[in-house]
């Protein structure tokens, strides 16, 4: 007998069910998955954008607004100047065509390396309940860009703010056939409280997360 067969048989025997799985059991599981009912959800204010801003700021995320995609380079340049950071970054391909040079920035659309200091990404959507970004991996949306650099700048379209994580899954089910390799929910800069329960920003991931809310 394989380990698998032994474990599954032990479970069924202990619970007083016959070793062979009945069709009704499989059907019940399939039906539950097909229905995937939502659990009880906490109340979230009707103004989900205000809620998102409020929560994101409380997680030490910072925020700015841009009217159009073309305004992104100026907003990035302004932020990097304010933070005293070098004017260089790696970005997702969707931002490759922007006029970064006009703002004095050196921005490359490529796989991020361990010593890159700033990563610029988009986001699949944003979640108001917790002030969270939902990120889906893919050839044009590599997750490491939001992870390795000390500073992560994310562009989030206002119309992609949803109420809760359930709404993020609903959006994903509507727009894609299956889950991507990685779905990452990001809620502010990386942190640790392992030493004396003292919260310290910038553990292994970014020290700073800056959002550009796109109208």
């Amino acid at each position: 007998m394989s380990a698998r067969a032994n474990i599954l048989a032990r479970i069924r025997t202990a619970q007083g069910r016959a070793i062979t799985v009945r069709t009704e059991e499989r059907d019940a599981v399939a039906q539950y998955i097909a229905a995937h009912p939502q659990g009880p959800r906490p109340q979230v204010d009707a103004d989900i954008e205000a809620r998102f801003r409020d929560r994101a700021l409380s997680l030490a995320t910072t925020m700015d607004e841009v009217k159009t995609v073309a305004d992104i380079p100026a907003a990035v340049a302004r932020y990097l100047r304010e933070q005293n950071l070098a004017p260089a970054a790696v970005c997702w391909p969707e931002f490759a065509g922007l006029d970064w040079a006009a703002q004095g920035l050196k921005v490359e659309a490529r796989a991020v390396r361990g010593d890159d200091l700033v990563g610029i990404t988009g986001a699949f959507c944003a979640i108001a309940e917790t002030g969270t970004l939902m990120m889906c991996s893919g050839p044009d949306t590599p997750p490491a860009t939001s992870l390795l650099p000390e500073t992560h700048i994310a562009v989030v379209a206002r119309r992609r703010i949803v109420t809760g994580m359930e709404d993020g899954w609903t959006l994903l089910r509507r727009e894609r056939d299956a889950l991507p390799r990685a779905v990452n929910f990001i809620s502010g800069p990386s942190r640790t409280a392992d030493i004396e329960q003292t919260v310290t920003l910038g553990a292994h991931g970014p020290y700073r997360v800056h959002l550009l809310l796109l109208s």
Partner: protein
Amino acid sequence: MHFKARAGAKLADVRLQSALKKLQGNFVKGRADRVAELDNFPDIRDAAAAIRDRALANLDVWLDTFEQNATARGTVVHWAETHDDVNRIVREIAAQHGVRKVIKSKSMVTEECALNDALESAGLEVVETDLGEYILQLAKEPPSHIVAPVVHKTRDEVSDLFAEKHHAPRLTDIPALCREAREKLRPHFLSADMGVSGANFIIAETGSTLIVTNEGNGRMVTTLPKVHVAITGIEKVVPTLEDVTTLLRLLPRHGTGQSITNYISVTTGPRRAGDLDGPEHFHVILVDAGRTKLIGGDLQEMLRCIRCGACMNHCPVYQSVGGHAYGWVYPGPMGAILTPTYIGLENARDLPNAATLCGQCSVACPVKIPLPDLLRKLRERQFEQGLKPWHEVAALRAWGWLARHPSLYGVMMRIQARALKAMANREGMIRSLPFGGGWTDRRDFPAPEGRTFRELYKARSKA
């Protein structure tokens, strides 16, 4: 050494006592504050317990569904009956892919297995990357808490340790210590061939594994090396994405007092065509190692556990002695149930008694595990198996015999009550009690007034 002996040493440890005080303020208050954000917390808690029960009621079918969906996305699913099986499977995967360096994110299951030792003895370099676990790896100590593994250490101890092991100037500021660890670990993230993680949940619907982290090391471990191995208990399966969402409203709130952790990472299969990052090979190991002993019996509710640590944070015993006193991987009330089950009641004799049954743990539990009830059941089992200490059994036998002889009982009680009264000082307190030093060393014992209840009852009935 048993719990009692270890607990005594921990109570006398001044550094430990100062470190443990911080836990109550941050985690206990943090949980209360974050739970108050949810207007319908009781409903969410009921739903969370029901989700876990649904998975456990048909555990084999949900696991089979997980396996099918994971396999369909290119994940290799392994099954391990014992801790040794886990270690063997990981060594085989490492050999198959020519792995030399392994980076790990926090995983309690691998603590159960002593995986690091098993990999190191096979010639592999193993690096723990969670800050707390990294500190413990340097100090060669086990974790003392399932969420905050290094809660027993003060900042000063970490400063000394880093200065010694890193051969670097001694830093004292916490952010500077964190940066020092970041800079030491970054090269390991970039050069490791294999990442080993746990999983907070596995999702049957999608065949995904999910981890909840704050530092970002978990994302690196599951993204950068060419091989990712996720190791988790069979009880961690959850039916759907919606179900896991409900549980995620509770886990960070109860674990660290956060509304949400910094990162929640759902990984499904290896790197896809065109992806710039992600592991080329993704293995999941589903571990039994004692869990099926809980299935179907009167302790099954323990398998609802989502490993938040709230029961230990709220436990007056844990708060006083810390995690190491419990002797194995899982401390606190949940450990007092899991340890005897996983390693045998005879090897964890006094753990079911390492609780006051005050009930704080079950009040704090996000999935409504009736921990005190389960501890009572284990105590009964201990008695049935003859595992109670002889003096406890003898004392209870003697009392039982006496209680069945009411007139003799009355005489004995009268003698005892008068003797105790005679020992009392002017305030009616006893300063030092023979065989009762555990009580009177630290506080006075109130003496009886001199007459027993039965005497008083008799006297008043006559009147």
